[in-house]
């Protein structure tokens, strides 16, 4: 519902000013737009729809990615939008399908959270994209700009802050739309396009079986190669004393990163059924002169499902957003 007349009972149960989710918007951005449209301080909407016992500060960390602290039903009622439209501003549905667990948590996606914004997205339509929450993504695919995590005054950007206006620095008050716009390094952008394709693959086609297959492929690949690519410069990994890194091994961010490190694509994941006894685990390079080879048939069947995904990637379209 986008229009509520005064006589409608929904008038009394909705916020004074309504906002509707934008395509591929992140829920945190929606909450800030609601604050701004209603002339409220940053985090006022959030405070209203937090689940009991949840802390407002939770939304400045991992919980903003998978917002289990938010009562989505209450928010849907207050904005007069379908619940499904709000679920689409999170990765709840995608992660639930991929991991098939009773209790979703942000750690299924990432082990840490860095908040950063695209100044151009904020300037154009006050939009915080859902892609900003994905681990290892440091550029805006739409504007090809580096995401900004520090204000010009040096303060780290914070999503919600009681004393700040929405979309502004809590220290100096600078509007995020006025943050410097810096072009992204093309090489890094290419890497992140690869990562985005993998995320898209898991969000649209992911299942627990696929997840297990991915882990098996990663394990076998590491065993076969004995080495992996160097980590990304701003690796989402906590370095422990002794140079070891700590990261939840099954988080999607970790898997996507590992696939890139091992030079593996979603196609490799789809066709992988275990290491072949006589050659590379890279099934895509597998060729057999036998006309009725069962392996070739299996590979052909499995790769067909990927054609749609690859088609739009080749045409330069943004990754699909999973609609529950």
């Amino acid at each position: 519902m986008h229009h509520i007349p005064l006589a409608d009972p929904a008038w009394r149960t909705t916020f004074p000013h309504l906002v509707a989710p934008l395509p591929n918007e992140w829920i945190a951005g929606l909450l800030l737009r609601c604050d701004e449209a209603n002339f409220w301080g940053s985090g006022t909407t959030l405070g209203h729809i937090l689940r009991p016992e949840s802390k407002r500060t939770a939304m400045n960390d991992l919980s903003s990615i998978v917002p289990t602290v938010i009562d989505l039903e209450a928010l849907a009622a207050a904005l007069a939008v379908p619940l499904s439209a709000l679920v689409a501003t999170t990765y709840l549905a995608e992660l639930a399908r991929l991991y098939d667990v009773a209790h979703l948590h942000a750690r299924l996606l990432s082990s840490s959270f860095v908040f950063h914004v695209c100044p151009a997205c904020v300037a154009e339509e006050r939009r915080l994209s859902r892609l900003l929450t994905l681990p290892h993504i440091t550029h805006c695919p739409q504007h090809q700009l580096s995401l900004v995590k520090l204000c010009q005054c040096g303060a780290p950007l914070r999503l919600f802050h009681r004393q700040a206006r929405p979309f502004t620095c809590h220290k100096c008050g600078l509007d995020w739309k006025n943050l410097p716009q810096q072009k992204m390094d093309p090489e890094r952008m290419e890497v992140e396009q690869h990562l985005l394709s993998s995320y898209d693959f898991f969000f649209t086609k992911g299942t627990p079986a696929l997840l297990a297959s991915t882990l098996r492929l990663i394990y076998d690949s590491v065993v076969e190669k004995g080495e992996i690519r160097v980590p990304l410069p701003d690796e989402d990994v906590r370095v422990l004393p002794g140079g070891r890194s700590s990261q939840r091994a099954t988080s999607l961010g970790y898997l996507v990163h590992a696939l890139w490190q091992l030079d593996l694509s979603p196609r490799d994941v789809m066709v992988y059924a275990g290491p072949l006894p006589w050659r590379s685990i890279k099934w895509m390079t597998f060729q057999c002169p036998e006309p009725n080879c069962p392996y070739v048939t299996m590979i052909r069947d499995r790769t067909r499902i990927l054609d749609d995904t690859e088609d739009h990637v080749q045409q330069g379209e943004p990754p699909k957003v999973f609609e529950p």
Partner: protein
Amino acid sequence: MTDFGARPPFVARDYFLETAFELRFQGLLRSAWQHRTWHVIAALPGSGKSLGIADITQQSDSYKDTRRGTHMPVLAIRAPKNGGKDLALGMAFCAAFGLVPTMPWYVRRSWLVQAIADAHVECIVIDDAQDLNLAHLAFLKELTDNLAAPPYQRQVSLCLVTAHNGAVIPLKEVFSQPDTLWRQFRRRLDTERPFCVVQGHTEEEVRSILVAFEDIYRSQFPDLQLGRWTRSIFTWLTHATVDPDGSKRVTMDHLTRLVTSTLRQSYEQGATDINASVLQATAELMVLRRDEITSIEGLPSSLSIAVQEVR
């Protein structure tokens, strides 16, 4: 008489009628809205003030829209009933906008000004304004002053709608006091019509309402002719018991009660027109025996008491 056993139950219609009173009352509200003037508007209890306010509010094209924003040209509230401070009035204003999260009063205070300006409020109507106290009126002045000042620069109309009895108009004496606040309030009231009393219905106006009732209940009373009882009804409803101020005007509440009650009883007797004896009995009950105490002794005929064997 018809076979009333086969008739569906009587249905009282509660349509909003654009009566002569409503034309006068809403005309005044519209004038204030249009010219952004301030008035104290009084009328007898039961005249139809609240219904008139609700109707004009609903007709004011108020909406919440994700694209066009929120538009509420007429902001109508009811004065807080249990006194309280400015917060009580502020909360009543906030509630008119819908769901507003919890926030400190000092924040809400300034938010209200911004919200009213942004929603393009042009006319503020406060029903039951006789319940407003000093703190409420001071807040009202602050609110409207802030709206009139930069950056909003919005002149809004203010209609304080009160119920009155006799010649006493609530707030009139308050605004006549020498304190600065009241003098400021008095200065903002309209020059020509600062205090208005909207009168009830004359006999002719009662007749036109009865004719309207005939149309409304035609489906349940095919032979209904209420208009011929105009003189009697007007006489009963201007009796000193129901018109203690001697206004010689009829309020809509009294008229509706008399007609509806008579129609219901006539309908239950299977009549297709109003039953004269029922009309007289109902009028006498309302006028002469209104304080009579009814003793409730019997049980409703449909009440069945479950009997259970005790072992």
